[in-house]
Every structure is written in structure tokens, then in C-alpha cells.
């Protein structure tokens, strides 16, 4: 089986588990999600600089939020990993950095859209998720590095520029190009 078939199976698998949690409150399905994602959320939070014990605690809390708000989950609107990413990032901003809440209600599995957002809204299909992962793997090395420093270390453009000895303008244009490449993936376009 090719790696993208495996990934497509994974994406289907996790959203099926989540559907069962959402509709049937199935604890076994939830614990499968927990076993897979809790270590990943913990690793992400440690990468952002949270001490191990704090990362552990916040990962528990992130997964518990998924359980509590499961009834809002809609597999056609948001991937489970995207929802968990958003929860984990917000917990880090709230609890570790103790900064003001910047967007209210953004712990929902998808943004509660205003009346005009529907036409832009794109479903996050399994095919699109797999395509996105492939595009991340195929990014040019420097773009991949800048994307990782942004997401996994939460470094600002200026900090990245200083650390890598690159002009600020180059950091920004490389990130823009990376985003445009990856956006083709998330939009599900060729």
C-alpha cells in the first residue's frame, strides 16, 4: 500500500472514530483518539517551550475539550487534527504565555461563520488532507524550515530572520510562497 493510501485510510479512520464519539458518545473510540493524539499534542506544546509537566497537563485538557464539545464536530467541515491544533495553540497562548484571548470562540471545531463566509468555505476532504501532507513533504528545504520554525517554535519573522541570517523580506516572501503551494493542497485544487 502506498503512503498516500495509508494516509487516506488514517484520515477516514480518525473521522469515523470522531463521528462515533460525537453521535454515540463512544468512549472506546474516544480513547483510540486519545492514545494517538495526546502524545502528538504534548510534543507540539513542548516544542513551543512548555515544560514537560505543563505540556502533559495541557494535552489532557485539549483532549478533554474534544470530548466535551464532540457534538459540534462535523467531519465535512474540519479535520480532527486541525481542531486539536487550534485547541492546543489557544491553550498555549492562554496558559503558558498568559496573553489576552484574541479571537473569541475559536475552540470550536470550525469557525462559526458569519453570513458571508459560506461561499469561501471549503470542506476539508480526506483527499485534500492527504494532498496537503504530500505538498508539505515536497516543499523546498528552506520553505519547509521556515514553516516549521513558524508552527513548531512560534518564531516571528524577525526572529527567524535573525536566527538564519536572512533578510526579513526574504523570510516573508519564502513563507508566502510556501503558503501558496500548500494552499493549493488545502483548497483541493490541482
Amino acid at each position, binding site marked *: 500500500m502506498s503512503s498516500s493510501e495509508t494516509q487516506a485510510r488514517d484520515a477516514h479512520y480518525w473521522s469515523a472514530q470522531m463521528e462515533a464519539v460525537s453521535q454515540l458518545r463512544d468512549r472506546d473510540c474516544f480513547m483510540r483518539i486519545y492514545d494517538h493524539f495526546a502524545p502528538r499534542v504534548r510534543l507540539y506544546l513542548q516544542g513551543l517551550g512548555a515544560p514537560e509537566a505543563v505540556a502533559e497537563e495541557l494535552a489532557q485538557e485539549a483532549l478533554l475539550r474534544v470530548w466535551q464539545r464532540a457534538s459540534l464536530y462535523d467531519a465535512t467541515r474540519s479535520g480532527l487534527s486541525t481542531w486539536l491544533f487550534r485547541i492546543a495553540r489557544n491553550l498555549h497562548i492562554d496558559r503558558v504565555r498568559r496573553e489576552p484571548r484574541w479571537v473569541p470562540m475559536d475552540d470550536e471545531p470550525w469557525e462559526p461563520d458569519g453570513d458571508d*463566509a459560506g461561499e469561501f468555505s471549503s470542506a476539508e476532504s480526506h483527499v485534500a488532507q492527504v494532498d496537503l501532507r504530500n505538498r508539505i513533504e515536497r516543499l523546498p528545504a528552506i520553505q519547509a524550515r521556515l514553516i516549521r520554525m513558524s508552527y513548531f517554535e512560534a518564531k516571528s519573522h524577525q526572529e527567524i530572520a535573525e536566527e538564519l541570517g536572512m533578510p526579513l523580506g526574504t523570510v516573508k516572501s519564502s513563507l508566502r510562497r510556501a503558503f501558496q503551494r500548500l494552499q493549493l493542497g488545502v483548497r483541493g485544487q490541482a
Partner: protein
Amino acid sequence: MSPRHHLDQATVISFAAGALSPEMAAVAATHIEVCPLCRERLADAERIGGALLGEQQPAATDAARSAYLRGMMQELLAAEPQMQTRVLAARAEAAAKPVDPDALPRPLQPYFGASWRALRWRWMAPGVHMIRAAPRSGDTLILLKIAPGKSMPVHSHQGTELTQILQGAYDDALGHFATGDMADLDNQTEHQPVTAPGVPCVCVAALDAPLRFPGWLARKLQPLVGL
């Protein structure tokens, strides 16, 4: 009407990644609230975050510790009901709340309070009023109110500046910036905004370095403004 000037896509990535300072994030969020295009880009940037989160490969952990945490979670599941009705009711209530014309954009409220009327503007120069938020990180967050038809000093920036127009409009070499528009500028930009006639131009700006004014007047102004 949808805004015509947007956040740089590189800034959207930083916002999604939690890599902006709180001041920059407050200004970016103020734009995102009124901009469907940037909201969609933010959703895309968060999907990238989700994919990166999912593809991480955690190292093997302490088995006893993992079993303990797992047991804790199972106990919590039994104790914590899913929140369906409560959450949905709260959300419906929030959506039904009428928009208060005196309310500041929500992302700015932690810095400037909730009410336009309660703002205490400080006079800085003829036609220019300002409020500076209490410093939090190293960045600066200011509200600026500039009288209509006024020319600001030519200036450039050492770092990044995000400016969201809350009311009124201005023109500079980059174009016409109206209510809802975002000016996402870096140190390559030198500009001289001129406010449009009619109403004062009110904007909120986050800066990560002091402004640089090249002119004689501006040098006199700079210590007064304290930027």
C-alpha cells in the same frame, strides 16, 4: 463591503501558528473579524498546522506514566458530560446579541476597554490624538485619531507595522485605505499618509520597532509622540 487591503499571507501564517506578539495579534484579529478572505486564509493556515501536528512522530514515553494519564482521562470521561445543549445555547445567545455601535472591536477590548465613548484621547500634535496601550510585550500598540484632510510626516519603519483602519480613510503611495482595510508594512516602505476629507481617520497600529521620521518637523514631533 469586504476590505480591499489584506494581511500579508506570511502574517496569516504567523497568526495561525501563534507566532505574533499579542499586540500584533490583536490588530490582525481586528482585521480578520471583518475580512472574509483573510478568515478563509486563516482557516487554510490552521489546516496546515493540523497536518503538521498529525504527522509528528512522538518518541516512546514512560509506560507507567502514560497508563496513569490514560486512567485519569477515563475517569474524567465518566465525570464530564458532553456539553451539547449548553454550548449551543450560549452560542445562539451570542449570535442573537445586537451589535452595540459603541463597542470597540473585541480583540482590542483587553487593551483599550469596551467602549468608544469611554476612550481618553491624548492630544499629540495639531489634528492628531493617540492612546497607547499599557506595554505588555516589547511591541507597541496604539490607537490613532487623525483629523480629516491631514498630511502625516513622511516616515519609514525599522521593523513591522500592522495598521487596521477602524473609521475614515487615508491615501498614501500604496493606495487608498478605507475602513476595514489593513496596511501590513515592513522596513522597505516609506510613506506619507494623507487622511481623506470628511470624518477623522481612526486606526489601530502595532509596531515592533520605533518609527523613523526623516523630516525636521517629524524629528521635533517624535519625542512628543514618544514612539
